[in-house]
């Protein structure tokens, strides 16, 4: 008998290549077992830029940033250089659970395909997806993932908050400790994973639901600080790193078995990640490069992006977004609409020619129009860069040199996210994170 039930386990930043390698090495017996039972592991493309807020929003809305409007963790308030942090209220397209809830205030091309077909009795449990704060009411339960400044406001309904609070749920580990107190950081990461597993199993067993999405964040945290330990047997934390993956494998296995039991194998089971990871060779500070090449003037007496001074033509924001300092849009905008094209062309050439020890740094520079389509393109960056593996493009404003290193060891990759789903449901062409919502909805509702 067929059931709409769907379980998605998100594993933040878990790379296709690493999962394959660890399975090969026998570190992930449960993953191996799952793949042996009719499931398929595929390499998947993340969104551009490949930052969690953007990529997860692409996952949950099934549309490109041009429609959902999230281009990073921060943006500038309209008409100013002041930073703001878009949250779920700024997501312009409906999420999967908005669609199954029949909410129509936000339109999207995906929603259009399911308009009128939706069975609104479908109940969703959505745990820890980034960019879902503050929690909006839904038919089901939601607790927001990164960034969640207030667990109470990040959880709906309040009874779910009460439960999470009472069981010692950890919304996010303290990443600051990674550099100063690695042991403490690992302890907290293990505990956080344990608590998540406990909470997910609690909701899985005690609530009714058709769509269940639970995300594990700690993998991403581990990668940022210790990705160099992943494959290097001599690394001090290699064993710890692997044991974290073993633990994660156990959790996924338990959830998988429970799901198969509930659905008699007729539901849709999926694991996926929002991007891949690779080891950082060099951090590349785009704003310093812009400064050196005459595109950017900074006034160091001010803070953050308010440092941008008159005469600036462009600036960069994390992770690899470049905005043209256009007249009218920014207080000190100095590029007229007429000149914009020329500035973009010049920038593109310049960026593509950046090299490090004779090797090119940037694989591709995309213009806004090539990447984004939809109603929410007014906030889109004018250019986005994709770097070669190993070069982490950053938006820092206070670096002296274009290249540098820090305590970060891992960087996101766009091409190496992963997705496991039933071989029967997997499309034949290469997967993109924006495809998943449609696959899930088709299963929930019947395409």
């Amino acid at each position, binding site marked *: 008998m067929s059931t709409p039930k769907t379980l998605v386990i998100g594993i933040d930043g878990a790379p296709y290549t690493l999962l394959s390698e660890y399975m090969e090495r026998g570190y992930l017996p449960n993953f191996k077992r799952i793949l042996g039972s009719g499931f398929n592991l595929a390499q998947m493309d993340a969104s551009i830029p490949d930052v969690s807020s953007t990529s997860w929003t692409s996952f949950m809305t099934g549309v490109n940033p041009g429609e959902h409007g999230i281009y990073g963790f921060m943006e500038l308030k309209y008409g100013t250089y002041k930073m703001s942090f878009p949250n779920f209220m700024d997501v312009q397209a409906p999420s999967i659970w908005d669609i199954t809830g029949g909410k129509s*205030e936000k339109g999207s091309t995906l929603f259009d395909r399911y308009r009128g*077909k939706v069975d609104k009795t479908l109940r969703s449990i959505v745990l820890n997806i980034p960019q879902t704060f503050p929690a909006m*009411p839904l038919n089901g339960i939601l607790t927001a993932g990164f960034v969640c400044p207030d667990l109470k406001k990040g959880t709906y309904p309040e009874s779910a908050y009460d439960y999470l609070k009472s069981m010692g749920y950890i919304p996010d580990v303290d990443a600051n400790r990674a550099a100063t107190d690695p042991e403490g950081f690992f302890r907290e990461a293990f505990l956080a994973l344990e608590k998540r597993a406990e909470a997910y199993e609690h909701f899985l067993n005690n609530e009714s639901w058709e769509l269940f999405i639970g995300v594990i964040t700690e993998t991403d945290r581990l990668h940022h600080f210790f990705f160099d330990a992943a494959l290097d047997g001599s690394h001090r934390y290699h064993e710890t790193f692997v044991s974290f993956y073993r633990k994660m494998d156990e959790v996924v296995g338990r959830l998988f078995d429970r799901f198969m039991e509930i659905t008699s194998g007729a539901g849709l089971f999926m694991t996926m990640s929002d991007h891949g990871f690779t080891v950082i060779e060099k951090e590349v500070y785009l704003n310093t490069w812009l400064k050196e090449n005459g595109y950017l003037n900074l006034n160091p007496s001010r803070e953050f992006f308010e440092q941008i001074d008159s005469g600036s033509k462009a600036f960069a924001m994390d992770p690899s977004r470049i905005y043209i300092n256009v007249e009218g849009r920014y207080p000190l905008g100095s590029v007229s609409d007429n000149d914009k094209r020329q500035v973009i062309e010049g920038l593109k050439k310049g960026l593509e020619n950046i090299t490090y020890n004779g090797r090119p740094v940037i694989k591709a520079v995309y213009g806004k129009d090539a990447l984004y389509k939809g109603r929410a393109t007014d906030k889109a960056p004018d250019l986005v860069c994709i770097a070669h593996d190993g070069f982490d493009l950053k938006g820092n404003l206070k670096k002296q040199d274009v290249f540098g290193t820090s305590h970060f060891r891992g960087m996101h990759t766009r091409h190496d996210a992963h997705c496991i789903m039933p071989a029967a449901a997997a499309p034949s062409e290469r997967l993109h994170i924006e495809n998943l919502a449609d696959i899930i909805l088709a299963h929930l509702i019947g395409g």
Partner: protein
Amino acid sequence: MEERSLHIVIVGHVDHGKSTLVGRLFYDTGSLPPEKLEEIKRTSEALGKELEFAYIMDNLEEEREKGITIDIAHTFFKTEKRRYVIIDAPGHKEFLKNMISGTSQAEAALMLVDVSRGVQEQTLRHCHILSLLGIKQVAVIANKMDLVDYSEQTFTKVKDEIIKVLEGLGITPAFVIPISASKGENVASRTEKLSWYDGPTVLSALDSFNSLVIEEKGLRFPVQDVYEIEGTKVAVGRIEAGVLRKGQDIFILPQNRKSKIVEIKKFMEDGLTEAATGDCVGLVVEEDGGLSRGDILEDCAASTVTDTIQANIFWLIDSEYRLGIPVKFKCATQEVNGKIEKIHRRFDPASVEIVEKDSTIIKPAEIAEVQIKLEKPVAVDKFSEIPELGRFVLEHAGHPVAGGIII
């Protein structure tokens, strides 16, 4: 998006799901601020009830406890096409004056019928009121389709029943839409369960309605007041129909005197030569015209000047009228004392049966065809021709007691 918002009213028998539909419209169009939803939720929880969409309209503590909508409530929601001001008019008979106050402000109406119950008393009453108030854009909403297993047959039966009632009153509904408000089906989005229905959803039906169009008619300018501005007498008022032009000859009714417009005045807008329907302006007329409040200025003295009014009235208050009780007749800015001298017939609009011909009383919530005798003549029109001068309110002892239209 259209700049103007459309005022709509949702009427229907109590319990046919009005507040739920309103709540659903707000929720589905995302017009309900999250804080507001939270506030309603908290209150619902405090009262030990589950969240119902109906609470969105039922703002007052007391209403929540009683579980009914007492008064007209205006709220705003929007679609991609325009904003809507929604006037929720209570279905209960006791709240008739609130229902009529609300409905009188509407440009279009949704008439709600519970398909599992069909046309009931207040459905009939409200159909009459829509007709009396001259509301022409009407969509019938057949609600609670989920309770009848989405049966097309049941729907068609109710549809035929309501169309018969409405057409008997001169109203042709633009659409009859099967929905389930509580499940949100056919409100903003379609459902497969009603795949046999190929008409619009509630929202697309609303979007197909038009804002009131101002038709070209003869001039009606009721004088509201006369001010003295820098030594000149200025008669202020609102153009209820037609256009005003500087230099135009006018008739002053009901006296039937003649004059001429010397100047059209609006503050800080000099040199006006013309003003249109709906405009509030001041007029300087030749030799000041001896104007005062209640005078009606017209371009060709087309209104009827009379002290005897034939009208259909609807009785709004809880006590009955007896022949001979004095009333004040208020039409545009005219106010004249008088009394009802004949009650040709009266009936309860909720039952269709004529209660009595040549009666001496009118009971609460009844409609009556009457003849009103006034102490002095007024200038009026037929409601069907110029509604602004064809509708009136009767007061007794300072309280509005009836609304009426001139036939």
